[in-house]
């Protein structure tokens, strides 16, 4: 009952969000470049997506803050769930990648990235928000830059200096020297640009495509069922609606999956910055 109500609210919200830019108009890249609505023209301007990001951050801080504040030795259901998520990141993401000894200091970074990304990604299916807070390039980029500084720092520290880290990354042992001419620049690009770039684009593109697919499905459903005034087309609209329903579920899955992937890759990149023989 509540599910169907929630879903229709979701559909209505999707419809209105998109229809605001014109009836029967399909989602476009403009959804990701919304107009500034607060502090226009300043470096602190906010558009719709930034606002969603701020709201979801406050939500995350309040919910997790209260959970931590009220945390008891014997956990309730919600605390148990939060603890399960922490344990998941700790053991299945960090320790599974680099072991407990090395991974202990990187649990917070992976936790922060995982929970923040998860919360921001899920905004894509929250009625009224309908777009992921990670659906502008800056947020995934910030995550990726953080990952970048983490693995450069761990690489420099564990290899005993910047040059030793670069040597380890760019001149892997056991390769004939002419190969270095090609290999070394590629290896450098990899740790400097390709890895963070891939992290950024993977998350961003997933959120963009997720929103486009979902919004398209619901706009089409709205069009065929309500706007077209054509009874023959209602079943088509119903099919679109079912598709939208499935895509919502799929988006929830993708939101979790991308948060997980981002956290895992952060752990993997940090781990691979360590010296090989350790």
């Amino acid at each position, binding site marked *: 009952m509540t599910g169907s109500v929630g879903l229709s609210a979701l559909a209505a919200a999707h419809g209105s969000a998109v229809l605001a830019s014109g009836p029967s108009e399909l989602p476009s*890249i*403009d959804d990701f470049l919304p*107009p500034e609505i607060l*502090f226009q023209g300043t470096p602190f301007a*906010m558009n719709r997506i930034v606002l969603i990001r701020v709201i979801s951050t406050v939500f995350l801080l309040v919910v997790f803050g209260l959970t931590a504040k009220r945390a008891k030795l014997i956990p309730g259901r919600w605390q148990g769930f939060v603890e399960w998520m922490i344990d998941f990141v700790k053991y299945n993401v960090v320790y599974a990648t680099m072991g407990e000894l090395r991974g202990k200091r990187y649990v917070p970074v992976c*936790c922060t990235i995982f929970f*923040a990304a998860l919360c921001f990604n899920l905004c894509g299916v929250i009625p009224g928000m309908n777009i992921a807070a990670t659906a502008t390039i*800056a947020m995934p980029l910030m995550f990726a830059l953080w990952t970048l500084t983490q693995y450069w720092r761990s690489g420099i520290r564990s290899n005993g200096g910047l040059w030793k880290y670069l040597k380890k990354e760019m001149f892997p042992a056991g390769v004939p020297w002419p190969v270095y001419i090609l290999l070394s620049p590629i290896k450098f690009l990899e740790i400097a640009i390709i890895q963070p770039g891939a992290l950024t684009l993977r998350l961003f593109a997933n959120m963009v495509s997720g929103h486009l697919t979902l919004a398209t499905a619901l706009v089409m459903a709205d069009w065929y069922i309500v706007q077209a005034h054509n009874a023959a087309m209602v079943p088509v609209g119903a099919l679109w609606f079912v598709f939208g329903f499935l895509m919502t579920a799929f988006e929830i899955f993708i939101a979790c999956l991308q948060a997980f992937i981002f956290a895992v890759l952060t752990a993997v990149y940090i781990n691979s910055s360590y010296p090989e023989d350790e």
Partner: protein
Amino acid sequence: MTTLAEGNSGIDLFLPKTYDIFWSFIILVILAVFFYKYFLPKFQKIFDERAEKIQGNIDKAAKAQKEAEEAKKKYEDQLTKARVQASKIRDDARAEASHIIADARTRAEEEAAQVSANAQKSIESQQKQALVSLKGEVGSLSVALAGKILGKQLESDAVQSDMIDSVLGDLDKDDVKA
């Protein structure tokens, strides 16, 4: 900056706006501080406390079990000791009983022997007495008898006593033969 323009091209998606970077950075810093300084340490504390408590309970249980085992061993030892003692007491009692019985038997046998010896003695003495008195009576009886048979008093005491002696001697011989 950009408004809702139709002219947005795809590349604009990948060019971060200054304000977007600003807010993303601020938010990430806030979240990082929250997770590093409050959320995770708090939960780590809870995890540690819980582990400690569980460990403490396990230790307590182990201690209790050890104590119980010790008490059990003590009781079993006591029980064994008591059993040994009981059987010892039983053995002692049995030994004492047989001793008493043996004593009693010995005493009874001794008494019986005494009684039978006394009886034997008194029988013997009575027999002797009887024999003596019998001898006397037999002597006088036989003298009287002989006198009656001979029809006269035996004259002299000497003859008389000779006769008695010879009769008694015969009697003694008969006794010996018998």
